[in-house]
């Protein structure tokens, strides 16, 4: 299973025990777009309150008229992680926040909910266990960074 990087995702579900300031680190497996069929526009009235279908105008080549089309939806398939401690509390010994990667649990998240890259460091780099433990590396040494880059 290809895993190249980790991302912070804004958490929208009600499981607040497994969030850190409303964010959870995930490992993306696949980014993809899906364009809904045009018939979805016929059902706009049946949308639940607060939900919308993003649309745009497109010029039809044959009739030369502007028509409404649903926008492509951007999603990412991600591997879930779970905080070792509730609410992402840091470890009392080392002060790091630890997460457990749950490779058996995958989710689809909208790309808009992705906040940015996360830096996870695996506890044992050589081990290839299913539920590997990683720490969230949250200290960026900016002096070193700007010296190097």
């Amino acid at each position, binding site marked *: 299973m290809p895993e190249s990087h980790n*991302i912070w995702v804004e958490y929208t579900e009600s499981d607040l025990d497994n969030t850190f300031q409303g964010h959870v680190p995930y490992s993306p*497996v696949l980014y993809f777009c899906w*364009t809904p069929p045009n018939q979805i526009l016929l*059902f706009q009235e*049946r949308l639940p309150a607060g939900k919308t279908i993003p649309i745009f105008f497109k010029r039809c080549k044959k009739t030369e008229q502007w028509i409404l089309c649903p926008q492509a939806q951007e999603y990412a*398939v991600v591997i879930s992680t779970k905080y070792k401690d509730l609410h992402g509390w840091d470890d009392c010994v080392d002060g790091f926040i630890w997460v457990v990667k749950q490779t058996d649990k*995958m989710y*689809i998240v909208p790309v808009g909910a992705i*906040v940015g890259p996360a830096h996870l460091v695996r506890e044992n780099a050589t081990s290839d266990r299913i539920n590997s433990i990683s720490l969230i590396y949250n200290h960026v040494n900016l002096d070193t960074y700007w010296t190097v880059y």
Partner: protein
Amino acid sequence: MEETLSHPALQGWHDIESANVFNLLSATDKWQNTRRAHLLRVQHCQKEPFLGPISQQVHHLRETHVCGVCRSIKLTSLIDASEDFGIPNFGQLFHAQIEEDWGEEICGLVLGYDQNVLIDSIFIKLQNGLLYYYQPFHCPTSV
């Protein structure tokens, strides 16, 4: 240091000088700060301050989007993507996400209720990466 300072700038707590340093000015703001614009403003005796608040429409504040379309694969079905990327329950995950986005009724009307049929008939476009418009690292002060 620059990273730490650019974060408040992105949040809107900034002035025109810091925005200028971090190259956060929009095209309109840049134009308004040229010498010619200043002279014109002086000539017309405008009361508005020379260094006005900058507009928020800078590229750093846009949402994250996918990028890098796989040109060799135009469209692929959910079942193929499921096998290629090792996502065993892709159809169910997709159905659940659409249901969350637009509700159960719309999801059923558009995608149908049989998830086995869905996995064959839905075609997606694969992407290679993301375009981040936010800070390159998670903010040291908030994480």
